[in-house]
């Protein structure tokens, strides 16, 4: 009896790698938080500082969620930034055409809705293209989305000639930068909603379960009657949709849209997803982990901005170090567990 109990416990630990990882990330978040608090309490603990962090993280946080989704199917979506910018540019082009700066707000408001819809539709279309290449033609995701990233950025450059689209009606950024209780930015609320929605979708919906299963073993998925192509397609469409939300947030924050905004976000989002515990081979990962990783990254980068003489590049060191430390601690804990189990047995 004792024996089977033990094996059950071991196996149970095996069964929820995601949960353990989420807990470890949480510990890390607390550590980073306490560290920053200890080093620069007067600056770090200001409400304005938290407000600043909440305003910065949504745009890449939402894209990181999109990339995570693609990674859970065993792929990757390198086209998120291109999709975000192209969506924003489509919306911006439209707004500038129908409601240039100075148009009365009553006239702008309905146009804003149309513009948002245009952006979201563009995101869906971009996702659909990447999705088709990955699912129907079977191009490795890393190649397909590298291609579409070039393509989307290219189209954005062609239609803007590389110039920022800036004469947007003020109402857009006013709404986009609205803060609930003068503290919680709309974009942050959106990020939370997106994380919640995607989290629920992954954990509670049929589609989410299918994503995990397809990511685990696509051949078995086919034999189990899953529509592999359809699931992959939808994953990239969702990722494209999320990217377009990011694009709108960037557009509101910058009050303009441009073909190369946030180009550096791609690798950052991949890092976030991986530190967040998403398995790049597919099948495993939790949105909770990704959200925590986003918070950790944000605290790190905001934290480093508090030190006048510390370069922002130390963030890269801490980040890389954290990634490897998490891996090593996983390795160490797994080994210790094995040893302890052995010791218990021989004792």
């Amino acid at each position, binding site marked *: 009896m004792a024996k089977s109990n033990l094996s059950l416990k071991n196996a149970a630990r095996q069964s929820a790698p995601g949960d353990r990882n989420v807990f470890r990330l949480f510990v890390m978040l607390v550590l980073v938080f306490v560290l920053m608090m200890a080093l620069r309490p007067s600056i770090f603990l200001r409400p304005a500082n938290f407000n600043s962090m909440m305003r910065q993280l949504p745009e890449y946080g939402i894209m990181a969620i999109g990339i995570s989704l693609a990674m859970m199917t065993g792929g990757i979506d390198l086209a998120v930034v291109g999709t975000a910018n192209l969506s924003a540019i489509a919306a911006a082009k439209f707004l500038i055409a129908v409601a240039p700066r100075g148009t009365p707000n009553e006239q702008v408001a309905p146009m804003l809705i149309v513009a948002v819809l245009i952006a979201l539709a563009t995101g869906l279309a971009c996702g659909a293209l990447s999705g088709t290449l990955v699912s129907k033609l079977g*191009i490795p995701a890393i190649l397909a989305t590298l291609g579409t990233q*070039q393509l989307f950025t290219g189209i954005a450059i062609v239609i803007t000639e590389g110039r920022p689209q800036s004469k947007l009606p003020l109402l857009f950024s006013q709404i986009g930068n609205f803060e609930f209780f003068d503290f919680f930015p709309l974009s942050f609320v959106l990020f939370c909603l997106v994380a919640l929605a995607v989290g629920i979708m992954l954990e509670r919906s049929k589609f989410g379960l299918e994503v995990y299963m397809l990511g685990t073993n696509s051949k078995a998925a086919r034999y189990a009657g899953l529509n592999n192509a359809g699931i992959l397609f939808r994953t990239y469409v969702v990722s494209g949709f999320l990217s377009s939300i990011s694009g709108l947030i960037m557009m509101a924050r910058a009050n303009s849209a441009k073909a190369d905004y946030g180009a550096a976000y791609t690798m950052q989002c991949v890092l976030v997803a991986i530190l967040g515990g998403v398995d790049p081979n597919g099948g495993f990962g939790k949105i909770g982990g990704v959200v925590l990783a986003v918070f950790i990254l944000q605290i790190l980068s905001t934290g480093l901005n508090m030190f006048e003489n510390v*370069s922002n590049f130390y963030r890269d060191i801490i980040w890389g170090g954290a*990634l*490897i430390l998490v891996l090593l601690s996983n*390795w160490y804990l797994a080994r210790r567990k094995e040893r302890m189990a052995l010791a218990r047995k021989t004792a």
Partner: protein
Amino acid sequence: MISLKRSLRRSEPYVAGAILLLSILIQVRSGQFFTGNNLVDLARSMVVPALFSIGAMMVIVSGGIDVSFPAIASLAMYITDRVLLSSNYSGPVILAYAMAAGLGLVMGAINGILIAGFRLPTMVVTLGTSSLFIGFMQGVLAASETPVPPSMLAHGKEKLFSAYNAQLGLSSDMPAQILILLGALVLVFLILRYTMLGRGIYAIGGDETSAQRTGFNVAKIKMFIYCFTGALAGVTGVVRASMMMNAHPTNLLGMEMTVIAAVVLGGTRVSGGVGTLTGTTLGVALLTILSNSLILIGIPTFWSRVFTGAVIVVGTGVTAWQAISRQRRVAARRTA
């Protein structure tokens, strides 16, 4: 007959076909593709990505993925450059190569220990170390553009020959560094094909457990792969700096995805076990020709990314489609 069929199942002929088509398009549009100086120019542009692709291909064949080589190359090159500059070194360039290779090897060994020793996932490890190396270079060393020491400068000016285009009165120099690429290609070809170590790399990529049982020392082979690619990346860093006659710390960063794409385009299987140097070189050639011929084809700068994206999408689409239909044929053949 059998061998013809077999060769049609590979992707090299298709990539070669794509290169041929593209060349003809460029020739028709500009009349300047099949000229000595243009080919020399292309060869020159290929040197750095092709050097990178050799290492990337070895890693992918072994079943891993490495995104840290641009960071290793940059950091190794930068430290070498700074040390040689500050010590007023004026001896032969070989020391620069040796130093960068050594530094690259050490950084590769860090990857290797984490991957082979602790059995950690390759992509995550190399993303992590890449971040570390870049952060170290830019944060701790506060790297910025610097000139190169005289030996590298002289090395950068060395040329094998000049190709002269009488029609336009243009000449192009074949840089000496192409010898390093050729040397690396020959060396790696020999390793991969004629040593047990090389066969072990393929074996690990095919089935790691089987490799262990067959008697391959998997950890040692992996260690070799990452050390070797690290050293090769270090050498590539110096090649780049000498060819540019300028040590630019961030210039190589961001190349990883394009290099990996070229490797995969050349028929290397993302899941490991399959890949050839010929295919890899063809893949690099295709992407290099593409990015260096947009003006020759007459594509306006604004359209260049659209065109590049479209070619990647269409090119890989054709290869992928061919792979799918091949699978079907294999299924049918097996039952026949």
